[in-house]
């Protein structure tokens, strides 16, 4: 079965959770986070989606950033979750699993075949 391209709106709600989780696993800089998301199974995610999401998390106080000098160029901005970020991750993950259970239960029910037009 060919899976059509992902609806960006589906990812939008979960992106913050994914970012918080990845950063909780390992402190990373922007491009590194994008690479890790692609390795996770989101090959078509745009950097232009991830960087503003990181910026939002930082503004909300859920991640903190520090500059680390790089040998290959300018200093890199590394992100890691704050205590509020860990709390948001725990709450968000619980809500996500609860929602996924409900949606999954409905979507896995068998549906009758679509009616043929004109019949």
């Amino acid at each position, binding site marked *: 079965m060919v899976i059509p391209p992902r609806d960006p709106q589906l990812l939008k709600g979960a992106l913050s959770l994914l970012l918080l989780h990845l950063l909780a696993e390992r402190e990373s800089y922007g491009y590194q986070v*994008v690479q890790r998301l692609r390795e996770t199974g989101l090959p078509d995610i745009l950097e232009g989606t991830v*960087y*503003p999401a990181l910026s939002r998390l930082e503004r909300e106080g859920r991640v903190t950033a520090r500059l680390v000098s790089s040998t290959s160029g*300018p200093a*890199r901005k590394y992100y890691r979750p704050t205590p509020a970020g860990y709390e948001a991750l725990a709450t968000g993950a619980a809500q996500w699993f609860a929602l996924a259970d409900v949606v999954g239960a409905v979507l896995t029910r068998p549906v009758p075949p679509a009616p043929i037009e004109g019949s």
Partner: protein
Amino acid sequence: MSHPVSWFDRLRIESVVWSLDHRLYDLSPRSRIAKRREVRENLLTASADIGTSEALRNLGGSRRLAAEYRAAEFDGEVRANWFTAFIFFMTGQLLIQSLLTERVLAFNEGLMAANPDATGTFTSSRFSFIQDAATFTLDHGQGVWTGGRMTVWAWVVFAVATILVGRLWRAVPGWRRLTSAKVI
């Protein structure tokens, strides 16, 4: 695979970075500098990793990136757009003042065509509510003119149009309190 980042690649990256910065005009200078640095650094890393063309393509364009940053910064709040208001005001003034000046000059040329040696005071008609009458005081075809400016009403309409185009009423703190109270 490592890709060498040439000076041309750096120029392309700088072009995108500054295009982004230009679109983030209403963020604080500190926030803009931080975003410029971060995007530049990430693009340089991505360019060395996958090539500049691919890195820029993956960024998704400065317009979209700026829209995402603004949404992240302002929580999707519709804000006053001073830049649009400024562009509208300046462009509008340029066009209107050119038109009004041309009209006065055309009246003067008409006078000179009718009588190159004209002497006396000549007054052009008003241009609806847009332009005051212009008065020429000539002595043997030489002289000065006064008036011909935009009327007060035209200024009022123009100011209102500028406020509407830039949604400048949203810059008023009282308006924000009112709209946020409605949302709650």
